[in-house]
């Protein structure tokens, strides 16, 4: 069973969003995603200042198995990226919701958050994939 914290929002492409109180959001890939991909060996993060759009590629996670695009769940401007992933991409596997975060963006449109799944709905997405 993969871990799906109640406090986060999710996409059907297996990214998570943590909405912070300062109008920014942290983004990463879910426990389910890292489990499917296997051990991470390289993460290509965006650059601070990059503009990202909801549903568009913003990063690449490369595992022992394959390269996968990460799609930004919401639109905004990148204000921080997780530099430690360059040295330790395995953080995405070991701690996908905390130390394995990928980027933090300034939210452009709060309305986009309503399009995302809560934990329960995201669980349904995973269950459907398995069937």
């Amino acid at each position, binding site marked *: 069973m993969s871990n799906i914290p109640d406090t986060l929002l999710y996409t059907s492409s297996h990214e998570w969003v943590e909405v912070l109180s300062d109008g920014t959001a942290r983004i990463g890939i879910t426990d389910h995603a890292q489990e499917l991909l*296997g*051990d991470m*060996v*390289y993460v*290509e993060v965006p650059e601070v200042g990059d503009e990202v759009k909801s549903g568009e590629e913003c990063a*690449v996670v*490369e595992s*022992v*198995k*394959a*390269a996968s695009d990460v799609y930004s769940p919401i639109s905004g401007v990148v204000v921080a990226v997780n530099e430690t992933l*360059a040295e330790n991409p*395995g953080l995405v*596997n070991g701690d996908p919701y905390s130390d394995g975060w990928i980027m933090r963006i300034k939210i452009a449109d709060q309305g986009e958050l309503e399009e995302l799944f809560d934990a329960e709905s995201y669980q349904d997405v995973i269950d459907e994939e398995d069937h």
Partner: protein
Amino acid sequence: MAKKTPLYDQHIACGGKLVDFAGWNMPLNYGSQLDEHHAVRSAAGMFDVSHMTVVDLTGDKVKPFLQYLLANDVDKLKLSGKALYSGMLREDGGVIDDLIVYYIHDTFYRMVVNAGTRDKDMAWLEKQAAAFAVDVNERHDLAMVAVQGPSAREMAHAVLSAAQADAASQLQPFFGVESEGLFIARTGYTGEDGYEMMVPADQAAQLWGALVQQGVRPCGLGARDSLRLEAGMNLYGSDMDETTSPLESGMGWTIAWEPSTRHFIGRKALEAQRRQSGGSKLVGLVLLDKGVLRAHQTVVWNGDPMGETTSGGFSPTLGRSIALARVATEVSDECQVDVRGKMLLCQVVKPPFVRNGKACIKID
């Protein structure tokens, strides 16, 4: 439905993540491919390779048969148990499969071929064997476990009978021996020391369990692939196939040209190819930029596309990405590879990348 090896229950018990591989239910990993890879380089790991095809060849004319069938020459095998790596070629020089053949005695050789090529290999063997009245007997009754790593032999000895351990400990590299129902060979596909052990199917689970008890780490197909890539060993279907000759596949060393009177299948085509200039070769690439090389990416040299990667991935031992690539013969020094639209810089090297736990390439 995918087939199960005699070790299927052990894979489940060890937490294996199973995938379909060449029609077999095989473990991709048991949690972490990287940890499994490092276990083989630093201590010992084991692989279920029971999906591979073991074929016993017997008959008075088995030696001339193999001298005709294979590009390498079994006449090199003088001592019982000695193994030989060879390509089995079509008339046009394309590689039907790569294999290992063991010389047991003058009328008995044992061959191990790939799982994914089993059907066409068996058909080809049967077809070619008829003229030599050689019996082709596929050993469905055997399972196979590869134990690999610097501690592998010592740990394997601990689970064998005294006689088996004694026989195994005397093996030189690339030799095998039969002992009390077990065929133990000092061979492998990782670039480390170790054994490949053929065991009666009904005893395989017991052997696996004993090795687990010794601390040998179960390893899946993922680690098997990254280990063989570091060792610079070809994977059939990726690095060579029926459309490529051994000369274009880093397998030139497996062609026994002498004696020139030995006619083997594919010889004429290879001789013609050898006389031609140009053509392609298989080289190793080490990625100097950040990123990961994968199979089927375009290699660019002096601004022109010059070939493509045939296998690629992350080398856990080197901490950077490596690949095998089929490129025009003039490609050397440095090249670029188109990785998802980015041109990344690579160093061209001669494989292997890693042997016995150590890097064997220098990065400029």
